[in-house]
């Protein structure tokens, strides 16, 4: 209900805007993110790039509060969706995570059938008739560009699918919950180039309706799929800072910061 409140305040135009301001994230005494101020626009793909261990994934997990699962994790500063803070203890993380879906690095379908994977979220969040679930499953699988490949094997184990299909199944599973924002944590790093291409096409088409934030190690991927790019890197104390962000084409052709240029031209990272 809190998140419904969030959606009501924003105009339809900018539903799904993410914003952090002077945000710090600590794991115990270790500071993982330092002073991150960034606004992520709706209906676009925003890529978070940066060297390993700079806190890209931690940053992504701010928005669905997955850092809560780590004991000792603590957030300071502003983390907002459509102008409302999502940090407080009064926030219902279940509602939040329904609005903010996540796709993981390795495809992680449940050890269930393809169908049961897709309707896992809807089944947890409400009572649906079989016909409604069938409908949700088909719609989500079509959206994830997987329907034609799996429509005859909905009853089969999800593990019988290829890696790329499994990842698209995970995306369908997120879409079935009806999110506004989809976080993707290196979604292609375990996939072959063809499967990667399909996921990238999917990201572009999903960006028409959703806020997509993707963490990637792959600079070409960031250049290909994203509208906005944010570059994070580690400081000497190993905490992540935001070096630069902007329109992707500008970041890749004419970065303002020397460190960004060094990174994207492959001088470190």
């Amino acid at each position: 209900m809190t998140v419904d409140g969030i959606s009501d305040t924003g105009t339809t135009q900018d539903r799904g805007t993410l914003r952090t301001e002077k945000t710090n994230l600590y794991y115990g005494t270790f500071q993982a993110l330092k002073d991150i101020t960034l606004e992520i626009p709706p209906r676009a793909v925003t890529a978070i790039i940066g060297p390993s261990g700079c806190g890209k994934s931690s940053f992504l997990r701010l928005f669905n509060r997955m850092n809560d699962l780590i004991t000792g994790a603590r957030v300071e500063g502003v983390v907002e969706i459509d102008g409302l803070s999502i940090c407080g203890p009064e926030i219902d993380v279940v509602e939040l995570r329904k609005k903010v879906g996540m796709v993981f690095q390795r495809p992680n379908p449940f050890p269930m059938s393809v169908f049961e994977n897709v309707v896992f979220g809807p089944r947890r969040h409400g009572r649906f008739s079989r016909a409604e679930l069938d409908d949700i499953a088909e719609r989500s699988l079509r959206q994830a560009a997987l329907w034609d490949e799996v429509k005859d094997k909905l009853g089969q184990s999800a593990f019988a699918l290829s890696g790329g299909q499994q990842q698209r199944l995970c995306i369908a599973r997120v879409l079935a919950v009806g999110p506004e924002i989809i976080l993707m944590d290196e979604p292609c790093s375990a996939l072959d180039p063809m499967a990667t291409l399909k996921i990238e096409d999917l990201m572009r088409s999903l960006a028409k309706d959703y806020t997509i934030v993707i963490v990637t190690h792959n600079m070409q991927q960031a250049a290909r799929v994203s509208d906005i790019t944010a570059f994070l890197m580690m400081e000497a104390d190993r905490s992540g800072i935001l070096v630069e962000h902007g329109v992707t084409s500008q970041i890749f052709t004419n970065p303002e910061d020397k460190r960004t240029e060094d990174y994207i031209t492959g001088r470190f990272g």
Partner: protein
Amino acid sequence: MSAGSDSCRAVMGTVTMAVSIPERGMKRRFRLREKSIESFIFLNGMLAIVVLLGVLVLLLREGLPVFWHTPPWEFLTGTRWYPVSDPPTFGILPFFVSTLWITLVATAIAVPVGVGCAAYLAEVASSKLRETVKPIVELLAGIPSVVMGFIGLMLLSPLVQSAFNLDTGLSGLTAGIMLSMMSLPIIVSVSEDALRAVPEEFRQASYALGATRWQTIRHVCLPGALSGITAAVMLGVGRAVGETMTVLMVAGGALAVPWAPTEPMMPMTAAIASGIGNAVRGGFQYQALFAIGLILFVMTLAVNLIADRVLERQKRKFAG
């Protein structure tokens, strides 16, 4: 025992020989050593099989002859056990039904409690709490069964007697409750291992989809660990079926076929333990008791084999 240490000594001899062969080069020496260690381990492995077969042969040899006196079907379904009358009657249905009742009660209590405890330890408790509680639960397994019998006599049977308004608190129910406590450790321990073997990715995926902790346990963790939990239950049941001393002390020892768990009863293990002291070696009663042992052996062996199968399947499930 002595066969084991003999073979052990023999193998040690080989090892010493292998090591003492000089100037044959490291490689050869190493190979011989490797070979002798291999055969030593092989012998140990064989020993278990030899013991198992030995037990089976012994039970068959001592127990089977009773079936010439009483056919197997009569033996299993007979309701009267008069081993010293003339002629003796051997019907083990009272014991068999008692064992079923007590196992049923023990399982009905131990499974929900044990799996619940395992789920709490694996999914909810902090690692510090888990590392304290789990060894304590496992320690329960080390309490001698005769001590559990005392506890059943002193504490539980009066409670059961007044709760169900019985003539005596010594009943199948009392025995079943005590056995449930004795099979808890193995159920908790093995189920908890199975739950922890469910990959973290599944939990992450579930939480990220907005599932609550309970929903994640119920719909992701428990189904993922189902075969391991099944195996845990089987092992617990095996323990309950085979337990002797506690049931001998608290089950009541009545010889009629029990129709309700609250009746006093005598399960198969207790029947053997209480009868064997009076049985003449090689006599009919002696053979009949061994035949009961044979049936028990087959029952627990079956339970264990099924548990093994199920565990194997659990391992394969997440391997790919």
